[in-house]
């Protein structure tokens, strides 16, 4: 069973992509969750969908164009993220308004592009729910490049990103360039979302960015530890989910996210048990 993941090239691509995505999605997800921006991931994934739909449409109308839907998806996602930052500045006291605006624009565009491309097909289905077979070697290389770039940038700007997430006013008073760091952060988010969609699909990408973090926050001490547990849970979800998905012939998005939900329930239970046992110790 496992052997086919290593030997079959198309499965191996998906497997390796899964490992990369299981790392970067929770890594960035930790910043997203603590900043209470979980919905931005949803908005951007729908913008990415419109980019993918645009790519599918080009493919249909022009036929065999050099640019595949994956790359138009990345492009739209990055543009969408820049647009969100602008909107957040325009609606200073209603920053969360940027999210429904971008999300609905993304869905609207997707509907238009999909119908021009003559509707629903397997390709689109793969993008919505993820796929273990749809990852080409070029996609894998692109995702590897994104993963490396994102990781390096987060390591380099870790202290600024952390500070801005914790207390924006204090960061600004200390002379941190809040706007530039925000900008960096949102563009990185867009890239990670576009990369993750290959594996988990548009509809579940935000789950992969937030569920492992939700589990991690319950048991971790401090921010670094939260990131480490998040990545651990993310990898576990992706690996178990991919294998289960292949085995039961279900799109991996579903099995990955369900695994993440089970891990979350597990940590909640673990915390309860721990509390009860320390309570017993006090009592006896």
């Amino acid at each position, binding site marked *: 069973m496992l052997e086919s993941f290593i030997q079959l090239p198309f499965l191996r691509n998906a497997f390796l992509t899964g490992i990369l995505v299981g790392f970067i999605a929770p890594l960035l997800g930790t910043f997203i969750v*603590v900043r*209470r921006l979980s919905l931005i991931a949803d908005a951007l994934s729908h913008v990415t969908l419109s980019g993918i739909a645009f790519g599918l449409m080009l493919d249909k109308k022009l036929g065999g164009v050099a640019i595949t839907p994956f790359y138009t998806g990345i492009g739209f996602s990055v543009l969408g993220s820049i647009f969100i930052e602008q909107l957040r500045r325009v609606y200073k006291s209603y920053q969360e308004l940027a999210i429904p605006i971008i999300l609905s624009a993304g869905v609207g565009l997707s509907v238009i592009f999909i119908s021009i491309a003559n509707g629903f097909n397997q390709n689109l289905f793969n993008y919505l729910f993820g796929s273990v077979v749809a990852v080409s070697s070029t996609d894998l290389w692109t995702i590897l490049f994104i993963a490396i770039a994102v990781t390096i940038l987060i390591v*380099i*700007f870790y*202290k*600024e990103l*952390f*500070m801005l*997430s*914790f*207390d924006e*006013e*204090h*960061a*600004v*008073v*200390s*002379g*941190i360039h809040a706007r530039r760091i925000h900008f960096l952060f949102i563009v990185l988010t867009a890239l990670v979302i576009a990369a993750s969609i290959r594996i988990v699909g548009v509809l579940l990408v935000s789950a992969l960015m937030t569920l492992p973090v939700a589990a991690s*926050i319950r048991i*971790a*001490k*401090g*921010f*670094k*530890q*939260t990131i480490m547990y998040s990545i651990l849970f993310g990898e576990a979800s992706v690996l178990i989910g991919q294998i289960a998905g292949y085995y039961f012939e279900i799109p991996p998005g579903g099995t990955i996210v369900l695994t993440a939900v089970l891990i979350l329930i597990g940590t909640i239970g673990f915390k309860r048990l721990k509390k009860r046992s320390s309570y017993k110790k006090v009592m006896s």
Partner: protein
Amino acid sequence: MTSPILNIKNLSYAYEDREVLEDIHFTIQPGRFVGLVGPNGSGKTTLIKLILGLIKHKRGDIELFGTPIEKFKDWDRIGFVSQKANSFNTGFPATVFEVVSMGLTSKVGYLHFFRKKHKEKIKEAIDLVGMSEYMHKNVGDLSGGQQQRVFIARALVSEPDFLILDEPTVGVDAENVERFYNMLADLNRNKGITLLFVTHDIGTMTSYATDIACLNKHIHFHGDPSSFEQMNEKDLSNIYGHPVQVVTHDH
């Protein structure tokens, strides 16, 4: 003579069309412990935000360490503990060490990492506020008073010359407030840190500060605590807009 830490001239400020500060003149000399008092809504936080450059003034001049604020760059010489420090997202997973480390972020600078000497400084600052045993606990799990001490440590870790605190004792219990004032007075005397402490608790302030400034749109008084206490209650009530009795604590 060395230039004052803070020098404000002719400063006015309005939100939209409502004037909140009017014709403020305010100077702080090095080594002072200034208590800035005034009723709720009198513009204390607004004044602090102007001093920190969080909002931009249109009329008047603000100088920090002799430099006009527009040109001022040495922000790590100023420590700040905000009114909001005790209303942060308590679910945020950050240890005491991690929170205090943020005080060094801009000093360490972009593209540089924390080194051993920075980590030593962070530990020292945590020690200074008596929180060493909580170093690796999440701040969200601490009491209000302990959290406030962590935020002081974050402000102190970059060894600022000027520390600004905006009502830092809100939500801290009485016993800890006392400790807190003593700690600040100690920093002022022994480390020579100039303090600007915003509060509406006049009584306690007068027994620790070297200067009291009283704000309500204007600076109504700026002088030493004993002459502040001698201001008759009628004057004070005029500033506050309601009867005020100064209860002093003797030490």
